[in-house]
């Protein structure tokens, strides 16, 4: 993959900042379970604009269309701007043949998307919610992921990217809250990426679009409006399969992705204040192929690992990470690896505050590991 932005280093580009305040009240049904920690970029990165997540995704799609005449965007209701506004203005700017609605059929969208890519064009498909990606499971797992391999590289659908809003949103219940990354992480041939905010989303989405492998880009929908950052207006890409160490620490490694990263950063601050414990917070960023070295290095330093994700615990991606870490870091581990995840239930409506791996469950896990 070619990075269009000359980055000195990722750390130089992204400057983690600390949460301004720690919410202390008990979350109500409409209040979020996390405090967003915005990223910032160095002044050298040029002009920036205040954007939320859906706006930065829109900007990435705009760059993708303007720099590649073959690129097309399609899905349910993307023509008028999308139910989350991610494609707003693009049909007017680029025409109905490049940004268009499809019939309401996810397996059709995925199959069509693969065919567009096989036909040599850049294919950007939207699933309206990650919860509805399952009708397309066959096309994604049996077809997209295996296209290059099974044909001996005669054909491929590397120009394919599937975007889908994912994750908890406060009241999405069973079918507007799911985090399906682990289903796809069991599929060689796919790349799976989850951004934690607008700056990352723009660079990672452009990377996915330009990567020569089929990518699934999962967008935490609760961040669409609530996550606001100063995003570079220029075109840039960020590396896939590269995790970010956001807060450095010595005692415990906290690993998550998407919205959960913000939960963990707040937890790290609480742990510092209340327990005088130093946490290293890592955003995995790419679920597949994941950045094993960054995680291993951190755990070898801290000796303790907590993995937190919204998806159910059993066979969640945390299980893969835990198994790999115990294999690689066995002699460095001072406590069992802890997974703080969604429970093994469907995602409930009114019980969401009790379902999510919130900061207090994560905090409790830190205490447990330190007392082991």
């Amino acid at each position, binding site marked *: 993959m070619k990075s269009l932005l000359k980055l000195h280093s990722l750390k130089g580009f992204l400057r983690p900042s600390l949460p301004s305040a720690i919410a202390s009240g008990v979350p109500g049904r409409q209040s979020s379970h996390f405090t967003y920690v915005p990223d910032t970029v160095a002044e050298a990165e040029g002009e920036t604009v205040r954007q939320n997540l859906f706006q930065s995704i829109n900007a990435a799609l705009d760059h993708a269309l303007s720099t590649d005449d073959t690129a*097309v965007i399609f899905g349910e209701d993307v023509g008028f701007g999308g139910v989350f506004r991610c494609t707003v203005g693009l049909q007017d700017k680029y025409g109905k043949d490049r940004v268009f609605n499809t019939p309401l059929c996810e397996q059709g969208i995925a199959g069509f998307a693969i065919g567009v890519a096989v036909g040599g064009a850049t294919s950007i498909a939207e699933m309206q919610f990650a919860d509805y990606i399952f009708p397309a499971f066959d*096309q994604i797992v049996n077809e997209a992921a295996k296209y290059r391999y099974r044909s001996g590289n005669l054909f491929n659908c590397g120009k394919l990217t599937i975007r889908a809003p994912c994750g908890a949103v406060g009241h999405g219940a069973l079918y507007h809250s799911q985090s399906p990354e682990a289903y796809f992480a069991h599929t060689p041939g796919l790349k799976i990426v989850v951004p934690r905010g607008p700056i990352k989303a723009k660079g990672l989405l452009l990377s996915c679009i330009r990567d*020569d492998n089929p990518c699934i880009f999962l967008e935490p929908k609760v961040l669409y409006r609530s996550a606001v950052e100063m995003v570079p207006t220029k075109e840039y890409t960020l590396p896939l399969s590269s995790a970010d160490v956001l807060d450095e620490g010595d005692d415990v490694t906290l690993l998550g992705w998407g919205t959960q990263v913000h939960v963990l950063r707040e937890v790290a601050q609480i742990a510092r204040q209340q327990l005088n414990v130093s946490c290293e917070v890592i955003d995995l960023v790419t679920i597949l192929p994941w950045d094993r070295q960054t995680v291993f290095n951190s755990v070898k330093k801290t000796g303790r690992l907590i993995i937190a994700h919204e998806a159910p615990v059993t066979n969640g991606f945390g299980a893969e990470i835990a198994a790999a870490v115990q294999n690689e870091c066995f002699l460095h581990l001072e406590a069992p690896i802890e997974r703080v995840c969604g429970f093994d239930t469907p995602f409930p409506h009114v019980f969401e505050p009790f379902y999510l791996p919130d900061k207090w469950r994560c905090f409790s896990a830190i205490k447990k590991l330190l007392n082991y």
Partner: protein
Amino acid sequence: MAGRLSWSAFNVARRSFGQQLRGSQAQLINSRTFSSALGEEQPNFPGSRSKWTEKLEFVQPDLYDGIPVYRVMNRKGEIIDPAYDPKLEKDTLVKMYKRMTMLNTMDRIMYESQRQGRISFYMTNYGEEGTHIGSAAALDDNDLVYGQYREAGVLMWRGFSLDRFMNQCYGNEGDMGKGRQMPVHYGSTEHKFVTISSPLATQMPQAVGTAYAFKRAQNGLCVVCYFGEGTSSEGDAHAAFNFSATLDCPIIFFCRNNGYAISTPTSEQYRGDGVAARGPAYGMATIRVDGNDVFAVYNATKAARHLAVTENRPVLIEAMTYRIGHHSTSDDSSAYRSVDEVRHWDSTQHPIARLRAYLVQQGFWDEAQEKQWKDDCKRQVMQSFARAERRQKPGWKALFTDVYDDMPDHLQEQFEYMKSHVDEYEDHYPTKHFAKDN
């Protein structure tokens, strides 16, 4: 499938009624809505165009006799209406005949080789050679083909060599697919034939996507998508038909309706008038042809291609035929259908026999040529077969490559692990049959 909350639940903008109406349908509805001449005389629901009726009548599926089967020649190879004789050149006709018979010869030898355990699996094309060659001959050689698995004749027409067929079935180092897929899962960029995969119907919406890309590229090509009548029951078939129509894609859907999906007869596959009757329901131009009449298939495909390419619209061809062979080498079809039924189709309606009768009537072919060609065919296939059997399998590193464009670290590690493992336990692996290029 998609459940949708009201958008206000996610605090996103609502779209107005005006924004819901798009394209010609919007204009149509608006003109109706505001036309005083029409007033209440016609319904103006956005979802359909039709008239009122005060009679309570269900539309019954048996209102008509079924879509007729288009044919050009009868079972004796005689042209019925000279106006529809495609009047192909002698060379073309002989080439069509030779490719059909070459396919038939290859099928017989490969089928036997599977019976002898020399390849793991095979699927013959018996009785459907006419659908392959007739359609392929009517296409531009650069039109992209998506197939199911029983369309080897399309590749044969386009000049895919016997060696490449054999190499794929043997999974040897000559196989462009690197020995990864089961036999008969052919593919070729050179011959514009997308690699076959086992999951049925998945190729259908993909073919539509490629046709859309072709339309935008304005390359003058169409996409052709073959599938069986059993496959047409998959959800992906529905998706493909609907997407191709709403997105105005230059694609030919070519259905091989051979009466069976493994053991399942069409009476258990659908209850409507075959697959063709679904075409108009999706807004597609549709025709049903005699799949054992290579000229009918040729004419229909040629006309379909013209429609698809000049008007950017999908066309559905349903070729009626009969699966003379077993479903595959893993199937004994006598368990679910009579030998007499098979014999009927093999002896009275075979596409190869019909074309041969036509050629003989034209003076383009005779017994001596037939005998010599049969011998020649068999020799060519046997020689290619022997070459394929002698070749090594690819170096087993190919187990790990092409999963991604580049090999990620974790796969590189897994390869290194297996390499050292095989070094240590070499006696337990068939390494001598595999190339040593790891």
